């Protein structure tokens, strides 16, 4: 699908070596607008919103921050650990947002499953519905993410 010049510029900024070593698109050969559209449809099918997903992620990150690197439990369901790094990362969508360089690693205490995300991931999901391209190290599959965060019903209740 042909996309606007503005989205094309953003897609170029997402390529490896521009803002990060590996970029945000992984091995995905779809256009950015196709990536956004597909993930939007996936989220809609689950009956949730990008903002509800981001809010749940942010809640876990804020909890993790209190541990200063030490794991912190939340709701008896998750253990979240925060790892901060030097500097800030500008959002490739050129909205002037600058994310702190932080990775939040979350473990589901019941299943042992682990997921990790950056502050920039949360912002890009919330503001742009962007979960990164297939094959990207930080790609978060919407369905897997919603399931990890407790399912659609829980997200709708929390938001």
């Amino acid at each position: 699908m042909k996309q606007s010049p503005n989205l094309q510029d953003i897609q170029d900024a997402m390529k490896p070596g521009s803002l990060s070593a590996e970029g945000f698109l992984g091995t995905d050969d779809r256009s950015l607008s196709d990536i956004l559209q597909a993930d939007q449809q996936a989220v809609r099918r689950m009956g949730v919103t990008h903002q509800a997903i981001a809010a749940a992620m942010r809640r876990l990150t804020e909890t993790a921050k209190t541990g200063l690197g030490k794991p912190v439990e939340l709701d008896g369901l998750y253990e979240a650990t925060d790892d901060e790094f030097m500097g800030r990362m500008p959002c490739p969508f050129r909205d002037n947002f600058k994310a702190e360089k932080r990775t939040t690693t979350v473990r589901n205490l019941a299943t042992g499953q682990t997921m990790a995300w950056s502050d920039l991931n949360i912002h890009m999901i919330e503001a742009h519905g962007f979960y990164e391209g297939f094959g990207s190290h930080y790609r978060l599959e919407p369905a897997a993410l919603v399931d990890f965060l407790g399912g659609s019903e829980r997200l709708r209740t929390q938001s």
Partner: protein
Amino acid sequence: MAILTTILSVSAISGVLALVIILAEHFLNNYGECEININNGQKILKVEGGSTLLSSLAAQKIFIPSACGGKATCGLCKVIVKSGAGPLLPTEEPYLNAQQRQQGYRMACQVKVKGNLEIEVPDELFNIREFNTTIESITQWTHDIKGLRLKLPPGETITFKAGQYVNFYSKPYAKVKESVFRAYSISSAPSDNQAIELIIRQVPEGLCSTYVHTMLKEGDSVTISGPYGEFHLHGENRNLIMIAGGSGLAPIRSLVLDILEKELDLDMTFFFGAVTKRDLFNLDELNDLQARHPNFHFVPALSKPLPEDNWEGEVGLITDVVGRHIGSGENKEAYLCGSPGMINACIQVLTKNGVTEDRIYYDKFA
């Protein structure tokens, strides 16, 4: 025949349009030679227009402080632009308060040189130099932290205050096609002036730190510029509390070594925090300094030691450990280097215990 005429017509129109675009780009984006007048004629530079003020000045060996490689995320590259900059950009706004805007401050990494400019910079910036160093040694301190020793060319020396930083320039590698630069604190003593040491942690997907951790070898050449920064001893002769985590050790180590060498009459307590033992490093040197210098006290602390760490030192969040040891904050000043979260939490503990905010100095990583 009609089809052929149509094809030829469309091709001709396309060609004319392409030529118009090429000519427009050539004339509209070609700013030609521009003059940058610094400090009312103290220096006058002739530069080719089109680049940012930051990079144009750097090309002329005038280095404006920047920690983020010109990405408008650090806010350090403020200069007064008296004329020629154009309107304030949205990317500059978060970093300039009303007073700074009135004074004419702009972000050098965002201002594009499109014509003649008049600017003001502090005189001390003319002391900042570029050095072509050689990697003398690389030390793998932890799983994600490396120490580098960079040797200056024969006959050259660097003058800096303990606590300051340099800009480190990576080279193109793998999928990264351009050089980038990042700020790293100097971890060696100022007296060791024919080389500098750095402590660099790998940032996930980091453009510069990935270069350091995956490409750099002993013997490689590296360009640095500096020194920069306002994080240094403020000479108020109070007793010192120093707190760091991870690569935040760098400026603190430089301060400690400098103070001990100069035999300044200061009592130092350094709190070095990590989660588990694998993230602590350089313990031998720090313990040795403590053994040899009665005025240096070293307090390593782990927030969640593993059984195999066999840890017998302090346990708890660094803020808790500091709180247990600090006593009265009167007549003390604090030097902190680490993540924003750690800094913010430590400031709360310090002020709660009587260290006033004007006596707390920090290098916040951001």
